[in-house]
């Protein structure tokens, strides 16, 4: 594949995780592995009502129980918070009202679990039950008891978006072909293996220290400061190893603040480990959604317009919801040129666990609907699904009608690789009944251009380096490795630029006292933004080393080149100095060397309302082909093989990129074939890993990863994201493969065997054979 021969020593190879030996030996430390002397156990009392007005919470008996150090209720910390500054609507504990089964009513810190549980049982809550709103459609109009006062016009609508670019009605009027697809998507959740957990300690020097399983330490830091009323510099946030996040550890979460509040309350360290049911109830997973999409095309298959609407079930809080509402529309804008676009999106509060950001946030459900519609359109046109997509592909250095700046795209190369490697043309509509092949494509942002919290003038990432006489290089950055391998990439970039061995580089665990701000692991921003900041910091450190090498060799720095652990004269390689010689020479002037690098994304985007949503310094692209088999008698189906062609620019760590693609395919398949947050009314019915159906190893197909990206002009060493974009294409690839197998369209997810069987039976009853059956 392209770029197999790397001009770099380390980058572009398969780099095992630097902390791998700690993880495989059980020595990596996750938050629950830490302890403190005199540690208290924190426990939460959760609301049994979906919607209720709190009349009183009597904690007097609980306070007196043995072992109980503190009991906390909402009124002490009424300051609202939320991940987006424009929609602060959460409180650490319920104040006045509870809005879903699982809302936190009270918290206890006690000497042990049993005492804490007994104290919770002794808390008396008097509440007036209010109407529950589990169906977002009910909340579209005025309701008797809006869930939040900020709902639009007495409704439960949290955010409404109207966008219109070009002239959609005119486009439909002149269209030769139109397709309409409506889809309903169940909510899904992250189901990371490490449960949510926080430990906090307030010390007599007036400082608060918080260890938490978070993917965005900086936003947690801010929320703690705002709600607890403590200046940022008096709070220290540490991120130990994190056991997966996928978006579910990106909001500052109420239990994190409550844990810290209990530590303040007691003056003792407190640990709060959520059980699995609580993790499901905390949710912030992918929004249950209903999409309605009309596509217009001309006689040759050029796309003319999308007319799209979405009703999005937000659950009890805003979370990332304003972004979600925009994303469900604007992430329809690639990987094809769509000259006219209209979108109406509404995100509605319901009395259910909050929805939020989950891997490929806002881009997954709408992508499924689009790619299903395009498969139908290709069939109408009598055109190969590949031809249709090639004809409409956004070219490099183009602009979407929503003013997204597309710089690099290797989407055509993705299509070509997936088509050839899968033998698509020999198989499509030609495999026997019950066997099928399908294409699904996608794109995703490589880092949101808009940092949530500051003006674009402040960098989204800063990296500090320190090289001391031992020859080791300490790297400080608040980026959050949650398993995706960002620590390894950070170390590899530093080692690459300086020419040193990888083991010289030590990535210091995130600690807000010493780690310069990076805004965390979300929006697939880390490789791009941290990578650029790390490169700049490393180049600045290298300049100091080369200046010293110049002093030692007499040759100007620009004639020196970097070799492994050595800086030598380009035209006289026998003349040179070792890394350590250069380092020690440079230290004569300043002691330990330091360098800093930062990344700020360039100005971009339009000026219309919501123009920033979806802008990114680069985009990844994907074309996946899936081959599937269906047992027509039972409806059971299996995905046999996936050819995953992906454009992440230059892959900097092939091992990690493959891992992201394989893991994304597994997660996307889960949403396709069975994962679903099931509710009766507002009550979550399956809050366990047994009843929430994640695909087993036996259900995982063989995956052939095809990395075909060309270098991105602004990405670090040409790289773009590979953490979220790899998810979106698998769902429609499988859906379209099932259609090819049995001639039945599936618009709603998940697709369970009973639905497949019913579809096959319906088709049989209609007497419309498929591939002769």
């Amino acid at each position, binding site marked *: 594949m392209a770029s197999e021969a790397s001009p770099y020593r380390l980058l572009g190879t*398969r780099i*095992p*995780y630097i*902390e*791998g*030996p*700690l*993880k*495989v*030996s*059980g*020595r*990596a*430390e*996750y938050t*629950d*592995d830490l*302890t403190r002397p005199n540690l208290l156990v924190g426990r939460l009392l959760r609301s049994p009502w979906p919607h209720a007005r709190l009349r009183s919470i009597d904690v007097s008996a609980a306070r007196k129980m043995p072992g109980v150090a503190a009991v906390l209720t909402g009124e002490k910390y009424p300051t609202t918070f939320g991940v987006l500054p424009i929609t602060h609507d959460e409180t650490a504990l319920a104040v006045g009202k509870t809005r879903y089964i699982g809302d936190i009513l009270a918290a206890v810190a006690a000497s042990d679990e049993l005492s804490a549980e007994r104290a919770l049982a002794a808390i008396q809550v008097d509440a007036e039950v209010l109407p529950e709103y589990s169906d977002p459609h009910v909340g579209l109009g005025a309701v008797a008891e809006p869930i939040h006062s900020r709902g639009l016009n007495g409704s439960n609508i949290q955010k409404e978006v109207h966008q219109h670019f070009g002239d959609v009605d005119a486009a439909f009027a002149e269209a030769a072909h139109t397709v309409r697809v409506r889809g309903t998507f169940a909510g899904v959740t*992250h*189901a*990371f*293996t*490490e*449960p949510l957990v926080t430990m906090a300690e307030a010390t007599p020097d007036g400082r608060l220290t918080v260890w938490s399983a978070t993917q965005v330490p900086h936003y947690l830091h801010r929320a703690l400061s705002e709600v607890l009323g403590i200046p940022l510099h008096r709070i220290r946030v540490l991120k130990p*190893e*994190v*056991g*997966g996040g*996928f978006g579910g550890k990106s909001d500052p979460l109420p239990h994190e603040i409550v844990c810290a509040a209990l530590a303040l309350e007691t003056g003792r360290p407190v640990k709060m*480990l959520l*059980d*699995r049911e609580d993790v499901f109830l905390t949710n912030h997973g992918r929004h249950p959604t209903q999409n309605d999409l009309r596509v217009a095309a001309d006689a040759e298959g050029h796309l003319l317009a999308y007319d799209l609407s979405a009703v999005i079930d937000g659950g009890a809080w805003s979370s990332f919801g304003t972004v979600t509402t925009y994303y469900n529309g604007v992430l329809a804008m690639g990987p094809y040129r769509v000259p006219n676009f209209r979108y109406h999106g509404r995100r509605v509060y319901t009395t259910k666990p909050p929805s939020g950001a989950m891997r490929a946030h806002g881009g997954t459900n709408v992508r499924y609907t689009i790619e299903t519609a395009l498969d139908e359109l290709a069939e109408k046109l009598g055109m190969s699904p590949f031809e249709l997509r090639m004809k409409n592909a956004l070219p490099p250095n183009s602009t979407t009608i929503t003013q997204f700046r597309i710089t690099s795209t290797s989407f055509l190369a993705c299509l070509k690789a997936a088509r050839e490697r899968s033998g698509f043309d020999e198989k499509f509509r030609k495999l026997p009944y019950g066997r099928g092949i399908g294409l699904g494509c996608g794109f995703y942002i490589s880092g949101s251009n808009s940092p949530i919290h500051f003006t674009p003038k402040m960098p989204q990432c800063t990296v500090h380096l320190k090289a001391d006489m031992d020859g080791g290089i300490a790297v400080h950055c608040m980026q959050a490795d*949650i*398993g*995706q*391998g960002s620590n390894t990439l950070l170390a590899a970039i530093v080692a690459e630029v300086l020419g040193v061995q990888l083991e010289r580089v030590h990535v210091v665990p995130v600690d807000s006292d010493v780690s310069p701000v990076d805004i965390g692991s979300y929006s697939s921003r880390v490789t791009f933004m941290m990578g650029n900041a790390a490169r700049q910091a490393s180049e600045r450190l290298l300049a100091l080393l080369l200046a010293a090498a110049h002093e030692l060799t007499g040759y100007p720095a620009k004639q020196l080149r970097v070799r492994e652990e050595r800086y030598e004269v380009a035209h006289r390689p026998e003349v040179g100095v070792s890394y350590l010689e250069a380092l020690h020479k440079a230290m004569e002037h300043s002691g330990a060397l330091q360098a800093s690098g930062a990344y700020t994304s360039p100005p971009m985007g339009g000026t219309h309302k919501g123009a920033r949503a979806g802008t990114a310094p680069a985009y990844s692209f994907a074309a996946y082909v899936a081959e599937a088999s269906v047992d027509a008698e039972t409806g059971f189906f299996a995905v046999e093989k996936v050819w995953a062609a992906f454009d992440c620019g230059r892959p900097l760590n092939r*091992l*990690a990129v*493959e*891992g992201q693609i*394989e*893991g*994304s*395919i*597994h*997660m996307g398949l889960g949403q396709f074939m069975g994962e679903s947050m099931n509710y009766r009314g507002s009550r979550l019915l399956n809050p*366990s*890993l*047994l009843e929430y159906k*994640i695909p*087993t*190893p*036996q259900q*995982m197909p063989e*995956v052939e990863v095809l990395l075909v990206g060309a270098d991105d002009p602004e990405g670090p060493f040409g790289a773009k994201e590979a953490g979220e974009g790899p998810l979106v294409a698998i769902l429609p690839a499988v859906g379209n493969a099932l259609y090819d197998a049995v001639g039945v369209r599936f618009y709603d997810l998940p697709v369970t065997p009973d639905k497949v069987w019913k579809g096959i039976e319906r088709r049989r009853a209609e007497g419309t054979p498929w591939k002769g059956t």
Partner: protein
Amino acid sequence: MASRPLRTRVNGTALERTVPDERILLDLLREDLRLTGTKRGCDLGTCGCCTVLLDGRPTLSCLTLARSAEGREVTTIEGVTPAEGLHPVQRAFVERGATQCGFCTPGFILTSVALLRDHPHPSREEVARAISGNLCRCTGYTKIIEAVLAVGGGK
């Protein structure tokens, strides 16, 4: 409930201590012995993160009373790890990218060590079946299966 003496072996070392009857093996390991390599992912027998070997058999320690270890041998990830370097299964997991967030990894390694002891050259299907009680949300199992096959001489 009563507390009684428990006699067992943990990672090759004899252990004698008084343990309440209702004490769960996972709590004994993590809280009492501070063997924190064994992970608590669900406490319900649904994730496999707490897998240890009980007389060599993969066992969910969150569903097992500490008492069940009476007179038996408990092996945790700490017991698999040599004093120097890594066990071949551990090395394969690192080199082949079979660990991402790592939270599931100790459980997978213990399951794999037991599989490879009984079936030194497992097929892909045998590996998939053996690990199907362990949840990994990061890797899609692809590289985990590859790592186990590599140790077993397959590919």
